[in-house]
């Protein structure tokens, strides 16, 4: 049987890779994708602990995370489309009208 620590280590690695992708990439769509990777790493950790404690509550939480992520993706992509219509670009350098 596979030790559950391996799943935990894999989820940590994937979360860190998602964070790296979020910082390196300069367009909104790819940054959004890296957020989804971090969601998935967290889901993997939830399922690992659900199996470790032999309880179904972790799986239910993962189910809720997936549904909320679907809703979030719909609204976020709509916002990205609106930004593209206004600025004709989705690079993060070009979205600076608040001088941030």
């Amino acid at each position, binding site marked *: 049987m596979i030790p559950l620590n391996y799943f935990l280590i894999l989820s940590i690695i994937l979360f860190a890779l998602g964070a790296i992708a979020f910082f390196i990439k300069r367009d909104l769509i790819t940054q959004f994708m890296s957020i989804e990777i971090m969601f998935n790493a967290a889901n*993997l950790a939830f399922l690992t602990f659900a199996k470790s404690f032999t309880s179904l509550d972790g799986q239910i939480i993962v189910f809720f995370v997936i549904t909320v992520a679907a809703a979030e993706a719909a609204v976020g992509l709509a916002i990205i489309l609106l930004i593209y219509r206004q600025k004709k670009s989705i690079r993060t350098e070009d979205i600076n009208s608040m001088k941030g």
Partner: protein
Amino acid sequence: MAQFLFFLLAIVSIASVLGMIISKDQAYNALFLILAFVCMGGLFALLEAPFIAAVQIIIYAGAIMILFIFVVMMINLRKGMEPEKKRWTKVFAVVVAIVLIVELVLTTKGALEPISSVASETLGNPTDLGRLLFTKYLYPFEITSILIIAALVGAIVLVKKRDTE
């Protein structure tokens, strides 16, 4: 066999996320991400969560990534997107990732050791999952349905072109 499957899925998912970091094209990024999500679905199935694995492949690799690909098709990005000039963002990203890894390893170090060898029977049985979803977690479930309707209506209202302008 399970061990071989775990290492295969883990290596493919990490490699596809790395490919997403390296590749510049958004469409390729989306395809790499679909591969990573399918591998994660396999890992979920290895963790005795078959229902969650099916939901992962249907919703993530199916629905959400189709949304992403639609948006990539609508936005014409062929002209721009030259590689990033600034080097300090990459250094900063790697430093943040290393700090994150160290923190997470330190916090989860003792978490799994005493109970990692429990021999569980059929844990992720969809029948039990559905029963739990409609008894203990009934109110979160209903609130989630309202949230999804609100998100869909909100997305349509946001993207709709207004005639008055």
